[in-house]
Structures are given as structure tokens and as C-alpha cells.
């Protein structure tokens, strides 16, 4: 133990007296300054009518959101509309990831699967998911199915690609380790391929999630009677900018929350990454 003591890395936390310079350079203080500056600039721009009546003041947006909590729009309160969008994303995202991630892993592990799926995938990959909206409405009507379909189309690509690349980029010598320790092909896949690909899979899920929000919005803007996209388009039609901006703010909040949930899931599944991230 004595001779490895010199190898142990220690992180020393120094205690220093509080000075003005420390407060001014403190991370949280700077966060606060930047947020405050943003909202002040916004409020001043709204009061000065830079965009004539198109920009509401921040407090008007909060007020509008508060009102929508209790006064239903098209039969749904604000929470109902949030749930409508979230539900579409959850269904589409779940279906896409449950199919695309295993398919991506199989493409990386089996060259026959790869040879069959890759050309189809390469053909469809460059097509923007929003290009499918019209055909989706023609096929499935303006109901839920067409919106979920768009989300599946949009999230399928990053889920599959990152799972595929995650396995392809595994250090090949790790397979040698498994073989030398007495393992077989099955052990290589379970003990090396999957865990090594987890971080890449989660990166793909994060990208897919943000694409899913774009997709659901676009679909709701085109045709919907519920959802956050519907609130935005309704606000535009009614010339109520507070409603439009309110919808945008709520989308940001909900999307952020979902992305945090996926990060939390990643920390649970990949505990070895926790300390790497927090540095």
C-alpha cells in the first residue's frame, strides 16, 4: 500500500476568504447576471415596442400561461395540451427507439443484416422528416397516427445510427481480452459490445428527443386541435403574442425536463460515466 500511495490522485479543496473578485467571477453569480440582463432587455424591447405589438412583456406571458391553466382552450387546459404533445412524443419516441436501437446493434454485429438494411436506410436517411407530413396526412388522416408517424420517422435515424456507430467504434482489443479470459462470441457481445455502446446509444436518444419535439410541433402546426403547437398557431391566428411566446416557453421547459430524464436514466445505466461527466 505504501508504494502506491504516491500514485493516488488527490483532489484538494482549498479554503480561501471571500472577496469581491471571487463573487464577481463566481459561476452562479454570472448565471444570474446573464439571466437578469436577458429578461431586462426583453422587457425594455417590449415596452419600447420594437416589434410593435408583436412582443409581449415577460410578466404578460406568465399571466397568459396562468390563465390558460384554468380557462380551457378547445376543451383542454394548458396541462392537457402539454400532455397531448408529450403523449405523442412518448409513443413515437418509444416505438422508434425500441425498433431502431436493436436494429442498429444488429447491423453492427451481423454483416448480412447490415447488407440488407443499410442501402434502404441510406436511401431514406437524407430525407428531412418534415417532408413526410403531407403524405402522412394523406395516409393516416389528421388524427394522432400521422403525428406519431412523423415522430417515428424523425427519431428513427439518430437512434439507429448512434447504436450502430457505438458498436463499430468499440476498441477491438477488448474482444481479445474476452477471448483470452475464456469467453466466446456471446460473451463478447454481452460483456463488451452492449456496455461499450451504451453512451453512444444515449447520445442518439438525446438527439432523437430534440428532433421529436421539432416533429411534433411541425405536425401540430399543420393540423391539430390540441398540443403546444396548436396553442402557438391559435395565438398567431388570434393575434395574441403572449400565447405564442407562452407556448414556446412551455415547450422549452418540457423538452428540457425530458432531456434531463434521459440523462438521469443514462446515469443509472452507465454509473461508470458519472465521474467523467462531472469533471
Amino acid at each position: 500500500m505504501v508504494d502506491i500511495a504516491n500514485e493516488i490522485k488527490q483532489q484538494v479543496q482549498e479554503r480561501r476568504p471571500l472577496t469581491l473578485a471571487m463573487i464577481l467571477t463566481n459561476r452562479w453569480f454570472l448565471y444570474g447576471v446573464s439571466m437578469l440582463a436577458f429578461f431586462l432587455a426583453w422587457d425594455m424591447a417590449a415596452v419600447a415596442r420594437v416589434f410593435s405589438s408583436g412582443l409581449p412583456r415577460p410578466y404578460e406571458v406568465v399571466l397568459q400561461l396562468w390563465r390558460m391553466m384554468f380557462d380551457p382552450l378547445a376543451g383542454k387546459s394548458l396541462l392537457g395540451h402539454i400532455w397531448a404533445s408529450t403523449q405523442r412524443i412518448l409513443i413515437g419516441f418509444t416505438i422508434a427507439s425500441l425498433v431502431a436501437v436493436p436494429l442498429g446493434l444488429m447491423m453492427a454485429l451481423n454483416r448480412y443484416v447490415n447488407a440488407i438494411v443499410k442501402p434502404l436506410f441510406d436511401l431514406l436517411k437524407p430525407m428531412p422528416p418534415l417532408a413526410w407530413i403531407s403524405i402522412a396526412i394523406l395516409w393516416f388522416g389528421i388524427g394522432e397516427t400521422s403525428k406519431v408517424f412523423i415522430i417515428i420517422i424523425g427519431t428513427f435515424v439518430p437512434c439507429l445510427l448512434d447504436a450502430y456507430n457505438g458498436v463499430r467504434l468499440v476498441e477491438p482489443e477488448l474482444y481479445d481480452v474476452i477471448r483470452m479470459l475464456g469467453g466466446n462470441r456471446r460473451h463478447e457481445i454481452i460483456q463488451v459490445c452492449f456496455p461499450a455502446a451504451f453512451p453512444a446509444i444515449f447520445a442518439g436518444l438525446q438527439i432523437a428527443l430534440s428532433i421529436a419535439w421539432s416533429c411534433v410541433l411541425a405536425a401540430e402546426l399543420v393540423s391539430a386541435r390540441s398540443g403546444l403547437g396548436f396553442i402557438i398557431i391559435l395565438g398567431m391566428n388570434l393575434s395574441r403574442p403572449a400565447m405564442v411566446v407562452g407556448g414556446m416557453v412551455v415547450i422549452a421547459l418540457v423538452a428540457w425536463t425530458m432531456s434531463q430524464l434521459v440523462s438521469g436514466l443514462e446515469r443509472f445505466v452507465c454509473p461508470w460515466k458519472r465521474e467523467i461527466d462531472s469533471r
Partner: protein
Amino acid sequence: MREERHPGQAKIECKDITKVFIQKGKQRVHVLDHISLDVKENEFVVILGPGQSGKSTLLRIIAGLETPTEGHVRIDGQEVEGPGPERGLVFQGYMLFAWKTVLGNVEMGPKLRGVPKKERREIAAHYIHLVGLDGFENHYPHQLSGGMKQRVGIARAYANNPQVMLLDEPFGQLDAQTRYFMEKETARIWETEKRTILFVTNNIDEAIYLADRIVTMEGKLPGRMHVVYRVDLPRPREHTDMAFLKLRHEITEASELTL
């Protein structure tokens, strides 16, 4: 001190090993040329050679990760036909499982061979103790320094109780100070639990400090065995010992001719 092949029962027997890699379908790279080498049971043999002398390829062939173009390798008279747990390999780049703790890495061999959990925990604890990592069982590899990582690598290879240990420039990525510590530790571990060891390095001091026998390789491809030295210095050895320095001088002189 020069010596020819010695008779008797060999633990590792390499006979006329030649390896030719074929690159891009056409170009042939002749890496090893008729290497014959016998290693006795519990002998510590170091293969010493500069980079690109084919020494790592030789080790990978003995490990079973490469097949020789000609010749064969026998362990206890059994021909090597692929990688297997009766040989423990320690990698230059550590090659730990980043998603496993120290304990998880060390117990991987027994786990793959189906040893019950309780038993393999005991095995892992034993070898973690042997390499001096008590208290680090639940650390992940990225929390360890280079020297500690390679201790895990050594413990992981030992945990399968292999008859032969193969070490491929295990300390090549360490700084000089840590490397020196690890050489001492390697000698200590080997004296505690004797195994037949084949150790590849490009460092003369490391070779003399550890080896019963040193096999030098010529410094160009195709790799050929150059000279075999027997190291009869008492252990533990001192780098400043006169006999140590004399042997070091002798090997350096002989090597320079071929470089």
C-alpha cells in the same frame, strides 16, 4: 553468459515460427523468421527488442490471437489453436472494461468460465490483494492512475490461474518512476505466486531486473532471435550493481551492431 537452447521439459515450446502478414491483398510483410524458443516451468523470460522487431507478434501468436504462417506453439506439449484461459495476457494499453469496477474486471475470467459468484469474489479479492489494490475494489478504471490500471490488468490475468503469463510491454505507457515501482512489484508478485512468464519489453533495465533469461531480437523485420542471455544475479536486484551494469553493457554493445 551466452547460451544455446537448453534441453528438458519445456512449458512453452515455440518451433520455427514464421509469420507473414498480407496487407491489402497483395503486399507481404515478413514479420517473424524461424523463431524457436523454449521456456521452462516457472521461468521468467524477457523478450527484448526495439519497436518493429516482431516481438509483440510473437507474443500474440503464443497467446493464440494470431496463427503462425509456419511452425507451431505448444504449451505442455499441447498445440495452441486459439486464445484460451490457460494463458493470461496483459496488454500494453491496459484494456480494462471501463464499465466494470476493479472487482468486476478481475472476476471477469472466472465469471466467463462459470465459477459461482461467491467463489469468484474470493478469487478476485485474493488477486486484488496480491497486486496491492485493497480498498480500490469498487473504483472504476478512470479513477485509477496508469500504474494502478496495469495492476488491475495483471490481477485480471492472474485470476484465471493461468499456467503461463504473457505480458506485452505492460509498463510502456508509464512514467519512469512508476515504471520502476511496477518492475519491483512484478518481481514481488512473481516470487509470491510463481508462473511461467514471457515478458516483452524494449527496456534493457527492465529486462535485466526481471529476467531469468533474456532473448534479444534483431532490430529489423523480419524479426529474428539474436542472442540469449542467462541472468544469474541474485534477487532482489539492484540497478547499480556491478554485475547488473556489466550485463547491461554487454547487451547494449551486442544490440547496437544490429541496429
